[in-house]
């Protein structure tokens, strides 16, 4: 699905977010991107979601080079294929839960009644049928993130891109949200790419890659026990035990 070859992203001569990233992500994969703050996780996610273009290398999605597509093509791709989930939920504060979900169907020109029907269905799926007419300010953090998940799913995307989706939630809510994401990923056969600094969350993914100072750390890529191997994987797979120890060390040192 995704092929990244020597992908780099430079914001200025001094700020280089990504350097020579090589990565393959298969269709239907659940990938976690872990790393320290400012390491380039979000930038990588934005490149994968066609929100930005790489400044070097090639990034292809289903064989299409995202760096070479026109702005309109990228917009259409975002509208149809990618569902975003943000750490701060990014709901429109003036719209109700239902209307917020509907905004994802506007670019697809889905008509009013069908738009409402599908949005309602998505909210039922995330367990928010009781809160459809509530404004974001009337919802808890977990409920807001559920609305955001419904908004990402309502258009039946091929890829879910979640940027620290549990970063603003307490532990219980975090587990609920990640359970929900995992269920949806499994039931719908989506490709799910999740950026997190939380190892507990990352452990739920099929595969975890580490990114630090803009570089993908091949040495620290990890696969969940029993998960299928990625369709293409050039990275070296370190031993599970060794990785767990490293993760534990990071946790104790405060990430």
């Amino acid at each position, binding site marked *: 699905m995704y092929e990244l070859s020597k992908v780099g992203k430079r914001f200025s001569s001094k700020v280089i977010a990504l350097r020579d990233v090589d990565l393959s992500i298969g269709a239907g994969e659940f990938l976690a991107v872990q790393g320290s703050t400012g390491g380039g996780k979000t930038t990588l996610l*934005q490149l994968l979601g066609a929100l930005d273009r790489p400044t070097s290398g090639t990034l292809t999605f289903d064989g299409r080079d995202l760096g070479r597509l026109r702005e309109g093509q990228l917009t259409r791709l*975002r509208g149809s294929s990618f569902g975003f989930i943000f750490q701060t939920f*990014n709901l429109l504060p003036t*719209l109700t839960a239902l209307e917020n979900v509907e905004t994802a169907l506007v670019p697809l020109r889905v008509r009013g009644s069908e738009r409402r029907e599908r949005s309602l269905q998505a909210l039922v799926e995330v367990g928010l049928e009781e809160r459809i007419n509530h404004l974001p300010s009337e919802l808890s953090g977990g409920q807001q993130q559920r609305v955001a998940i419904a908004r990402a799913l309502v258009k039946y995307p091929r890829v879910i891109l979640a940027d620290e989706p549990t970063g603003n939630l307490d532990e219980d809510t975090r587990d609920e949200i990640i359970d929900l994401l995992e269920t949806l990923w499994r039931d719908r056969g989506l490709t799910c790419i999740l950026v997190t600094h939380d190892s507990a969350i990352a452990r739920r993914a099929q595969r975890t890659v580490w990114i630090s100072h803009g570089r993908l750390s091949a040495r620290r890529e990890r696969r969940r026990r029993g998960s299928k191997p990625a369709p293409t994987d050039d990275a070296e797979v370190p031993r599970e035990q060794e990785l767990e120890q490293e993760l534990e060390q990071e946790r104790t040192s405060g990430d």
Partner: protein
Amino acid sequence: MLFIYLTRELRRRYRQALVVSLGLAVGIGLVLTVTAAISGVGQAQTQVLHALYGVGTDLTVSKTATAGSGGPTHFGFAPPSGSQAGKAFSRDVLSAAGQGTLSQKTANSIRKLSGVAQVASALELTDVNIQGHFSSNPSGRGGFVKGGGSGGASPVSINTTSVTGIDVSNSNLGPITASDITSGHFLTSATAADAVVSTSYAKQQSLKAGSTVTVAGTSFTVVGLVDEPSGSSVDLFIPLGVAQKLSSLTGDVTQIYVRAADATEISKVQSEIAKLDSSATITTSADLANEVTGSLSNASTLATKLGLWLSVAVLIAAFGIASLLSIAAVSRRVREFGTLKALGWTTRRIVAQVMSESIVQGIAGGIVGIAIGFGGAALVTRLAPTLTAITGASNAPTAGTPSRGGFPGRGGGFPGRGGPADPGTHTLYLHLIAHVQTEALILAVVLAIAGGLIAGMFGGWRAASLRPAAALRRVE
């Protein structure tokens, strides 16, 4: 979706939306008020021109007063004899005193000139009526009682009536036209003792269509009332021939009104008339407008120069503030627009969203602005001081100089009428009535939408220029 999003956003930012709308409203309201005032000043000027000049007239021909012109002005009293002592007397003098006269043949000659469409003549007269009692002076010397005199006799009273003889054959050119009649009808017979009376004179004398009014001892039937232009002092309009006969000025007129076939012919016609009568004073409407001085002229200058520029400056400021506030609002919503872009919203759709919000604010501002404009115009009408228009003050009529002429002094020299002692000047008092014009309303709507568009365009463009990733990175 656009509508829901739009209304919710405006409701959320209602304070700011209110400021933007009110800013535009003040700008638009000021423009409307100023244009209404300018229009009011323009109408006042038209009234002045109408009062002095006649409706639809391109040129007037008159003559400077000379000694003895305008007919006799003496009352013909012989020294009272002893037998007349204590008896009542009444004398009328109808004359064109203070005005020069032209021969009606000149009007006929002008009518034949090329480039002349219509010609009408008028004879402006003043009827002075003196009433009182002869004194019973024991010395035997004649005289009038001057009021409150010995013996308790009545005082001498002097009444003046302004009478204008008009060309009955031409009902759409001259000091009044058929369209000015508010009650009854225009004069129809050139020889009948009919009169059209000004509404103010009719009110003063309790006259109406069908009433009888006496001028210089002759009874006239009132056939119509005319709403004379503000500042005009004419009380009665009678047929020209009748006026000439009553004043013993047969074949004479004081004004010739000329309408050119085309506006471009005016100067040519002016030259031709000057050739016909070198002593005539020929005045065009442009000359007349230039000669109007006084507060009306000042108000006109103030309204057109300062007022208009001030309102344009306020409007630009209002547009600027609206744009800045819109940009500020958009800046606060950058992450929101970044999210929408991440959801696949096109830049065009986001710009349309921002612009539609601005246009709604603009339209709201326009509606309030129109209300402010009407209120402002009403306030100008209510508070504006009475304007004065002084005509012919600095320009004595010069014979044979067609391009610059003075105005015939009207009523000068008679007690109680006219105004300034200088017979060459004429002062009119007018009240400014500021009307909001339809064109100005259309302008207001256009300005409101343009204001919204400009404000929204700046804000929308700013939002559109950001890449989605950059917008999402933005810290609010």
